[in-house]
């Protein structure tokens, strides 16, 4: 076996599922690849796909990761024994590769795309939304809630501000207006909502 170059070795290390990893690297240097490799190795180790959670910040990243993972696992499903062993080793996998292991590796593709409840490679937002929907009583939300659009949130904040200015809290808003320099209150209320985690219902 040819010795691995340094970068590949470190990618393998980062993809080792047994240890916690903080990975930071340049754009285009293969972070997503390492992440998908790590998921693939977890699956190889026999972890149920529904027990894996991958959070990303953007929808684009989540979809891309999922597609890449399916591509990789899909390729395994159709490789012959020797080629599949090579592919697993190239991933840094050092476990056993008996016929039975290989047969199992070939089924990971279909198992992953059919993860009960869907493979949890998703954005933080959709993960949180799913949690809230699962526990509507505790979260104090409707089980059928939808995420508010930015524009609708702005209108709602404006309505709330107007209600405040017209109601018993008027002096409070008045006092705030005395020290507030900006042109309009909406900008500051948007910041208040986003930094305190207040929600409107």
């Amino acid at each position, binding site marked *: 076996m040819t010795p691995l170059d340094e970068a590949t070795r470190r990618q393998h290390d980062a993809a080792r599922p047994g240890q916690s990893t903080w990975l930071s690297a340049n754009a285009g240097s293969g972070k997503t690849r390492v992440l998908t490799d790590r998921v693939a190795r977890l699956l190889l180790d026999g972890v149920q796909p529904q027990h894996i959670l991958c959070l990303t910040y*953007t*929808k*684009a990243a*989540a*979809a*891309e990761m*999922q*597609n890449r993972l*399916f591509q990789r696992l*899909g*390729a395994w*499903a*159709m*490789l*012959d024994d020797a080629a599949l062993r090579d592919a697993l080793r190239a991933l840094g996998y050092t476990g056993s590769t008996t016929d039975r292991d290989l*047969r*199992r590796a*070939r*089924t990971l*593709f*279909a*198992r992953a*795309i*059919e993860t*009960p*409840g*869907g493979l949890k490679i998703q954005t933080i937002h959709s993960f949180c939304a*799913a949690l809230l*929907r*699962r*526990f*509507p*009583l*505790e979260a*104090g*939300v*409707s*089980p*059928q*809630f939808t995420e508010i659009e930015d524009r609708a949130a702005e209108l709602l904040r*404006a309505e709330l*501000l*107007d*209600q*405040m*200015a*017209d109601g018993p809290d*008027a002096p409070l*808003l*008045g006092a705030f*207006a*005395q020290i*507030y320099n900006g*042109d*309009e*209150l909406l900008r500051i209320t948007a910041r208040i909502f986003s930094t305190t985690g207040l929600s409107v*219902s």
Partner: protein
Amino acid sequence: MCERGETPRLFGCAPGVDFPRALVDGLTARIGDAAPDALARVTVLVNTQRMARRLQDLFEAGPPRLLPRIGLLTQLDRLLPDAPLPPAAPALRRLLELEPLVAKLIEQERDLNTRSASFDLARSLAQLMDEMQGEGVSADQIMRLDVSDQSGHWARAQNFFGIAQDYIDATRDAPDPEARQRATVLRLAAHWTAQPPKHPILIAGSTGSRGTTQLLMEAVARLPQGALILPGFDFDSPDAVWDRLMRSITDPDLAREEDHPQFRFAQMMHSMGLRRRDITPWSSAPAPAPARNALVSLALRPAPITDAWRAEGPVLEPDLPDATRSITLIEAESARAEATAIALRLRAAAEDGQRAALVTPDRMLTRQVTAALDRWNIRPDDSAGVPLHLSPPGRFLRHVADLMLRPLDAEALITLLKHPLTHSAGGRSDHQINAQRLELRMRKDGMPYPTGPLLTACAARAAPRDGAAMEAWASWLAATLDGAHDDLARPLADWVTRHLALAEALANGPSPAGPSELWQKDAGEAALAMMQDLAAQAEHGGTLAARDYGALVSGLLAAGEVRNPDAPHPGIMIWGTLEARVQGADLVILAGLNDGTWPEAPPPAPWLNRKMRADAGLLLPERRVGLSAHDFQQAIAAPEVWLTRSIRSDDAETVPSRWINRLRNLMTGLPDGVGADCWQTMQDRGAQWLDHARALDAAPDRPKAARPSPRPPLAARPRRLTVTEIQTLIRDPYAIYAKHSLRLRPLRPLVPSADALLRGILLHDVMEHFVRATLDDPGARRADVLMQHACEILAREVPWPAARTLWQARIARAADWIVETEGQRQSLGTPAVMEADAIGRLDLPAIATTIEGRADRIDLDPDGNAILYDYKSSAPPSADQQKFFDKQLLIEAAMVEAGGFAALGPRPVAAAQFIGLSGQRTADVPLEEEPPAKVLADLAGLLSAYLEPKKGYTSRRALYVDREARDFDQLARFGEWDVTDDPVPEDLS
């Protein structure tokens, strides 16, 4: 007819077989030449109305004969020996009765903060109850689940199940539809066990997706003359696959293969103790594409045995060209491109007389395709119709419900006035004219929150010449809308009454000549039926707020649907995935094949997680996936097939549907490369249509507009400008051309906002009132007096409470500074004229042009010299800006010296100053550098330049801020050019 063979008796039809036709053929063949009444003794139970209709049509198209009885699985009363159960209680009633119980529980539970969600929670609980009754699971069974949970979550959830159980117990006499169906099936099964019917009973087209249906099917299969005919039975799966599916039911170490398309059948076989070989084809009709069925069957293998792909795939490989010959794969850049390509193909089908069906769960996509087909006047036969809440009466009723929800705002008013059902009982055209006049006036005056008095006053201003008619209309409107908004909690029945009264009053207009259009046509009738149903059930509901009432009505409307009234194209169909089972199309387009769309993402399940559901015997989300997979397997077996998806959604790439992923992976990974070639060919066929779609949507690249600099004839150029327009003439001459030569005025927004323009106007007002007051009483030059004026004016003129608070605070901050500097100003001179009567005028006879202007304020010093002031709510202009652009005060100073202000006569100007109110800063006008004589000469030069025929009014000539949006940008087609382009003059006649 089913004399031979053991029971239970199961038959199948392969995917892609025209199921109703095969059913009829098989039945006819089995009857053979028995007595003519043999067929009439047969009972056929089918799963959908559509299937029943198609069967009926096929029988009627055949030779004259006595027909079998065709019934629906949900209508079994006829088969019972004795009186049927009382009719089921409507689902709406259950929702209405559950909601107060849920609300009460939420109130009792201190730590729950979900009062506003009681309807949603009740709806979700009702769904769970449906399922419990359909699967024969009691609340007790659920409550007994072994759940280790310390958080109190399970205890809380159990309280809700308690509600459900109490409710079910209390409504035994009037069960809901699921419970009634189950009770009926149980009675029927007991009756059949005691007295097995001698005549044939067939159940056709059902997969037994629900527990109750499966019970019935099992009972029928065991009858001496009973049989089940299963749709889309996969005869290609080898025994090993069936064994695996069945083993997954019993073997605790294996996960149940619920998401496999054939799993429901495997479960049926398992519970009846059947093997694969016990199931035979119902008719001899071959599948349209047997090779494709084998391929799809292999691709859809249960996940744990997909390693068979490598073993069995190569066997199929030689047949792949045949299997995929009639498949086109569309992978479009966007959902829109997907829809256009589909529409093109459907159009081709219509032209060739091919029967084509679009099958997808994605209603947005079907709407896009329908819209795209409209350009060729093709109206597809959409099995789902239009959701009632999107139909005209549905929208109207929602708008009216909104009126009760919040104070009337301008947008809601105009939306309603322009709705085609408003004032639709005669005199509609007068109504339209009145509404238009009102709107124009409202835009001019600004009226964010119309009230009765405001409306009538505005209407009077809107049509001074046509007063009486307009007044009558406006008072009708004001009276009808008065009191619509209501934030009390009321009994549901009250809300329904108010809603209906308001809707009918608005639809009728002041003097109806007959019934309005509101309840007319299919959609109106459906909406009326829904509202009457709600009114009839209203007594069962609790008290609720307008918001909950609005949500309830919207939800009910959204659940209804209206068939498209236009006669649709007979051969172009849009089917839901379930209807695809009926088959009978030459071309089937499977669209929206992306993960999360088809199969759909599982709906949120708030009460029980997956494991609890499995333990309790409720539906698992995977069952829905399995049913979808079965729909897919049947649809893809049609004679010709299109598979379409978009590779991107709005914000990200998409993940292909799992079935597409499987198919691609299997085909492209086969060793001989035949599969990969076939896949490529399928894609190539699709790419061709995508090219057509692109060509269809391509807009020809038109030359971009040049930066305009129109040169209207001299007669059309303005000879009368205001002082403030001089700055516009310098910075953006095109705006002067648009306003004076074309006589265009921007239409102001319907809902005015608290903008800088209004703020400026009001600050002027405040200063004027304040200064006037100090003239009468020098002791009034105090901050509190200033604020008193400010509060009064803002209270009167600013309808937005928050903006009012903010502006008030702003003036308050500057109050001391204003009072102090006002003292200085009044020590220098005495205010002589103020805005209201400070109109000045400057005639330039040499060029026959007049300049008019309104000065904010002119004071006179003890020597009789004038001092000019201008209030600014923003920062005052710099000296350079004044010299080259903002010449307002310079020109006014020249006006004063030339005697342009009649009240003052000609006088020397001692000083001029801008007062920046919110910046608390003043700026002197550079009178020495720009003496009046020079200003006048410059002005005359500028104006006469624009009276040269060769001088054009260039757009955006010299703006202060390059990004600034201007009123006439669209007319000038700014954006097609930018300011680095040279203006292109154009002589106008």
